[in-house]
């Protein structure tokens, strides 16, 4: 790119600009740092509170530190089962969304059948309807099929309701690829499915990772859908388990904070690993 060109004036202009720093600019800079530090403290404080609370127990409140809460964490069968359910939901939703979304992205972005762009516009408009608007009929419909409490069905709901967004991202991605990729594969005798799987799909990896990360966070942290569609104890997710902990008899703030922090560890890990994909997903649709 033009990095060297655009950075050159910055470098040459650096020293004089620093030299011209007046007292006002220094005050502004000091004030700015103070604001940043203060906001950082406010941001960290609740998390520090969670951590210290999780490292105490009700018997030793305020007095001594203990790893007791974290120690018993993984001896709780309900929590382990909930983690399993959440993980299963995430994996299934991501698989369905990636496969179905990539096929559609390929169809709308590259193959482009007659009328496809009209259908695509209609599909994208669906992104404007909030989930809550249609969640009640959805719940009744799924109930009629006898599939409330069914983990794969719930994963399908996550994937289906996010499908317009997935198709939007993947279509944009496939559109950015040169048409020659498909053409040359087809001339070489590959069928369209073959060309899709071996030539185009591997290139879509960044877009699929972006979607996967967003879906993982969305499903892992969701409450509403899981609360409605997985109401039984043995299908509870981590979110539902935590949200309903207030009403159970084993209510223990130290334990709840330890569980809360533990439940966020997968998200922290995903964030650290895939940070740049997340930014791509957040700003999707802006830089075209």
């Amino acid at each position, binding site marked *: 790119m033009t990095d060297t060109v655009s950075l050159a004036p910055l470098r040459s202009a650096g020293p004089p600009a620093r030299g011209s720093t007046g007292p006002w600019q220094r005050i502004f800079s000091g004030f700015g740092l103070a604001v*940043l530090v203060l906001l950082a403290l406010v941001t960290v404080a609740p998390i520090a509170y969670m951590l210290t609370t999780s490292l105490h127990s009700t018997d030793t409140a305020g007095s001594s530190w203990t790893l007791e809460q974290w120690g018993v964490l993984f001896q709780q069968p309900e929590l382990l089962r909930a983690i399993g359910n959440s993980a299963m939901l995430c994996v299934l939703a991501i698989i369905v969304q990636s496969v179905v979304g990539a096929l559609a992205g390929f*169809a709308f972005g590259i*193959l482009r059948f007659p009328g496809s762009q009209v259908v695509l516009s209609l599909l994208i408009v669906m992104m404007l309807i*909030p989930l809550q608007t249609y969640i009640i009929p959805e719940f009744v419909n799924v109930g009629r099929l006898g599939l409330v409490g069914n983990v794969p069905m719930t994963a399908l709901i996550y994937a289906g309701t996010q499908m317009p967004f997935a198709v939007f991202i993947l279509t944009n991605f496939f559109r950015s690829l040169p048409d020659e990729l498909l053409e040359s594969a087809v001339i070489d005798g590959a069928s369209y499915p073959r060309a899709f799987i071996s030539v185009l799909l591997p290139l879509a990896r960044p877009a699929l990772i972006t979607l996967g990360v967003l879906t993982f966070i969305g499903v892992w942290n969701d409450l509403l859908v899981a609360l409605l569609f997985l109401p039984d104890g043995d299908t509870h997710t981590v979110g539902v388990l935590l949200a309903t902990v207030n009403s159970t008899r084993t209510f223990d703030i130290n334990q709840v904070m330890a569980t809360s922090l533990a439940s966020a560890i997968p998200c922290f890990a995903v964030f650290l690993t895939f940070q740049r994909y997340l930014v791509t997903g*957040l700003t999707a649709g802006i830089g075209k």
Partner: protein
Amino acid sequence: MATGSAMSKSVELRNRRPKPENRLPGNRFGGTRLGLQSRRSLWGMLFALPALLLVVLLLVLPALQALYYSFTSWDGTDAQWIGLQNYTNGLFANPDFRRILLNNAIIIASVPLEVAVALAVSYLLMMRRRSRPFFRAVFFLPVALSWVVIGLTFGYLFSSRGAVNTLLDNIGLSALSSDWLAGDWTSLAALILAFSWSYLGINVVLLSTGLATVDPSVIEAARLDGAGGLGMLRLVILPQIRRYVELALIVTMSAAITQIFGLIYTMTAGGPGRSTTTLEYALYQTSFAQGNFGQGAALGIVLFVVSLAVTALRIRSGVAARD
């Protein structure tokens, strides 16, 4: 162009691409090209089908049902057509509903302030090369926490014997301490605070991405011309990152009205009274606690209209920006 009339339509639809079929072997033989083209279209339709099926069954159908049932008294099995009653008697004549709308309005109105803080933070970070990664990581920490976890934590923090009151007592401001989540307006303020706390990181990342697209030479030129601090932000930088600021506003507003069910559920359960109930929470309560699905469906339609209004702001400003 030597295309048959049957072809021209599909060629038109693909007009944003070069016309690669002109380079295909058998180009001169209309039949072969048409065969290839229609095979391509068939595969396209086939590949789009699963996504369309999922969206129609899991989104479009229930959305249309919601619209229909919003005109009925529906309890999940029986539905009697009652016209506009769910909207007139059930909502707009109901003081509870007016309070719920007011809560939504207050939450939406607080968003520009939240984005302004995030913009200030991003701007301050832009000038701090060395400490930037550290601060960004700190501000992003809460983003990994689910609304359930944030709601539980802030519920404890603002409870009558919680950390906030302990802190106020310790710094000699006991007079200010109160049972935050029991108060009509303090509970709403605490909820908004919890929301803003979590969303600062997302907005900082969004706006920092925008700031990174600003041409450094423009900033240098403005600096040499004597611009600095807030003047630089307002006159030089803001116009260049307008789209990012708008995106931050929309993303945050949409989240505030459609995505914080988990936060409300665990932090205040919509209370005391209706003081922290928003449309999305009222919809859940009305439908699943009171079993009034028809009324809940009407709330869902209102929520759709409100979120459409928020998004329409963006579409309008997007059109304006292109002019």
